[in-house]
């Protein structure tokens, strides 16, 4: 009965006309509504969790009081989250009035810090999204981030005497190449042996963790420190910061935006992208059409790895300026959720990355003022991911109409690779 089924799958993706219209066309699709509702529902559930874990709620004298305390706790949490991510309006106004440059920078810092937090998300999200477009699940972004950071830091430390304009791109490139290698291996194994890239890239993650441990306790270790941490990179390898202390906002953000644009052009405007997407949508048809599956799979995984590697490089060259064990804390896994929220479209990824960056940065403030552990962000992300992965839940809750076309969501094959 495939004919009947086919009729349900209608036009999924009209050709994108130009970059500007993408936002509009994405917005007009009903699936965007689902995405937004998924985010809202995630926030509501998070609020519920906060309310339920506030001890004062249970010690309140009456039910009404308890409810009030609960609502206050939730309000306080999200207020802290918001001001942590954007800044406190009153402080901004006060700072502007005072005219003190340092105070103004401090007032605006939360906003810039959110952009800083979004930057690795953009890189990593692009990495996963590119994989999805080619039918590959790069769950190894985390490991690629580590290797990218490792290579970038090595280039940042050991290349000496280079001018800034050369040293930065070179270190960034080193990170990209390291990540690319880490994506290349599962890619070539998939292409040549059919071994599933999910398992192999999970394995590559742990190999990367061990490898960075090895280097940080050995060759790269800063001999002056007791903890396994690398030396600082050369000044010339640091990404440009645009403002004085404390704003850490740096040029990595713009590099990330540029990469998003490049990925967009690659995927939707070039013959290479046409091949990549064809391989992702129907490998047999791609083979029939004379496309080289092995090359495309390997290129896709390598490019994906390179983007993830740049996320790692961005962190060490832009923010940390050195490498410590376990510095990434799950960017690579969050990127999976993020790519899905962004519908594997480069511009969608930017939006989703901004959301995640603001959440993550806001959560730091939230932990300080509202006493809510920062881990609630992971919980929120998990909820959102669940709703995005199973849109039928959102449609049922909010009584949305079934879409007149079936979304060609991410479809992956089993371990057997069939």
């Amino acid at each position, binding site marked *: *009965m495939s004919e009947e089924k086919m009729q349900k799958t209608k036009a999924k993706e009209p050709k994108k006309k130009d970059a500007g219209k993408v936002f509009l066309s994405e917005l007009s699709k009903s699936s965007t509504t689902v995405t937004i509702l998924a985010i809202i529902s995630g926030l509501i559930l998070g609020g519920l*969790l906060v309310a339920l*874990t506030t001890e004062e709620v249970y010690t309140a004298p009456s039910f009404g009081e308890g409810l009030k305390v609960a609502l206050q706790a939730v309000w306080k949490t999200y207020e802290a989250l918001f001001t942590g991510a954007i800044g406190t309006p009153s402080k901004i106004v006060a700072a502007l009035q005072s005219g003190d440059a340092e105070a103004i920078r401090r007032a605006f810092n939360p906003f810039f810090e959110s952009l800083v937090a979004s930057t690795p998300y953009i890189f990593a999200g692009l990495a996963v999204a590119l994989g999805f477009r080619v039918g590959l*699940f790069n*769950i190894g972004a985390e490991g690629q981030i580590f290797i990218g950071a490792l290579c970038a830091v090595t280039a940042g430390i050991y290349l000496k005497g280079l001018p800034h304009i050369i040293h930065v791109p070179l270190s960034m490139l080193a990170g990209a190449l390291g990540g690319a290698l880490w994506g290349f291996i599962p890619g070539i*194994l998939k292409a*040549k*042996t*059919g*071994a*599933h890239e*999910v*398992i*192999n890239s*999970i*394995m*590559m*993650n*742990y*190999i990367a*963790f*061990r*490898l960075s*441990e*090895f280097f940080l*306790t*050995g060759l790269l270790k800063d001999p002056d420190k007791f903890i396994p941490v690398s030396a600082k990179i050369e000044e010339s390898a640091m990404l440009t910061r645009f403002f004085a202390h404390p704003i850490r906002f740096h040029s990595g953000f713009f590099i990330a935006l540029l990469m998003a644009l490049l990925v967009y052009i690659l995927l939707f405007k070039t013959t290479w992208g046409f091949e990549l997407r064809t391989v992702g949508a129907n490998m047999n048809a791609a083979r029939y059409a004379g496309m080289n599956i092995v090359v495309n799979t390997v290129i896709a995984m390598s490019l994906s790895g390179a983007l993830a590697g740049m996320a790692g490089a961005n962190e060490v060259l832009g923010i940390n300026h050195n490498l410590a064990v376990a510095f990434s804390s*799950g960017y690579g*896994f*969050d990127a*999976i*959720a993020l790519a*899905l929220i962004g519908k594997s479209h480069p511009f969608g990824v930017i939006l989703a990355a901004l959301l995640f960056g603001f959440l993550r940065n806001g959560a730091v403030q939230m932990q300080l003022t509202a*006493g*809510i*552990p920062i*881990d*609630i*962000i*992971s*919980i*929120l*992300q*998990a*909820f959102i*991911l*669940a709703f995005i*992965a*199973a849109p*039928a*839940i959102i449609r049922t809750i909010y009584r949305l109409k079934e879409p007149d076309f079936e979304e060609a*969501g*991410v*479809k*992956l*094959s*089993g*371990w*057997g690779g*069939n």
Partner: protein
Amino acid sequence: MTTSTKQMNHGAFEYTSPTRQRTMGVVFLLIAVMVFGFFSRGLDTSLVTTFRMSPGGSDVVAPDWIIPSSIVINILGFICAALGAYQLVRGFKNWTNLVLGLVAAFFVFSFLTWAAAEQSLNLAGLINSSLIKAVPLTLGAMSGILCERSGVVNIAIEGMMLSGAFVATLVGSLTNIWIGLLAAVIFSGLLGLLHAVLSIKYKADQIISGTMINILATGMTSFFSAKFLQKYQQLNNPGRFPTWDIPGLSKIPFIGPILFSNNMFVYAMFVFIVVLTIALYYTRWGLRLRAVGEHPKAADTLGINVYRTRYVAVVMGGMMAGFGGAYFTLGSVGRFDEVMTAGRGFISLAAMIFGNFVPAGAFAAGTLFGFSDALASKLAILKVPIPSEFLLMAPYLVTMIVLAGVVGRTQVPAADGVPYEKE
């Protein structure tokens, strides 16, 4: 008759790959070369290696095993070379993988003999430690087997185990360790149910659903740990399962202290291996479960409820992972630390694949991975110039090699990861 002709033809053209035969032969020879090159060369022939045969702290004492290092290594190297030569010329055919295992074992033993030459190595302790480290890996792998044999990919073993570890601690601290264990099993079973609902009912991608559970579990356990366990330390003190000596058996030298003087989790693991093997291959339930994982439509046309079978399997898989997770707290350190499973759920996944989706295989793989883990911590003592990080990479590398088909294909259930669409 046409049919019989075709059948015969079908059989006649089946042949064993000569490439694989030769590759394996070369591998065996390379191992022999490595044994001679790394371990035998430059080793003083007068040295002896002492293996201690009772784990530290055990009162069942077995005499030390003292062997001449160089001679033993050379003999093992020679056997490897001979096996390699035979494989190249004649081939071991169906026995190839077994011989590969044997050669690998010789290599490892040569390594140990070399590393501990002139010193002593506690072999019993090493084996016992491998076994203990294999417990969560094997339990996790069996969680995977339950799910994947029914056709649902489970990469959420890590998250389920982590949640199990946390819930066991929390509930165990409030009540007692047995109820804590039960709570862990139930809670992870609920996570299994969540995975099942998302991937079976809502047909969400199973890898995404699994990732979501991993993120959720990490977030939840860290959140509650930060909010409550750190504030009220008494909530993070459940106690541990004691060591049970099996009367009689635990007094056997060497074997006794290794196998029969452990805590409940080790014994439970063995029971689960046996029970799950019987259940999968000798019961109606297992036959149906495997059928659903191989060809769900065929099962459906025979009146088997594909969805219900998968639900049950995935929930049971979650429970198994919860049991394995409880080991980390109730069976090992006796307290919960954030992200304490540290990727062991993913090694379990590797053990499941390496073990060919069979409980006994999962145990073998788990023990092997446990061994590399146990050995890594001994290297520093033996002053061997190999970084422990590289030994710790072994499980991942081995899995990748297995998946690449170098050691023969694994038997992945045919419908694994494919949502079933009832038309």
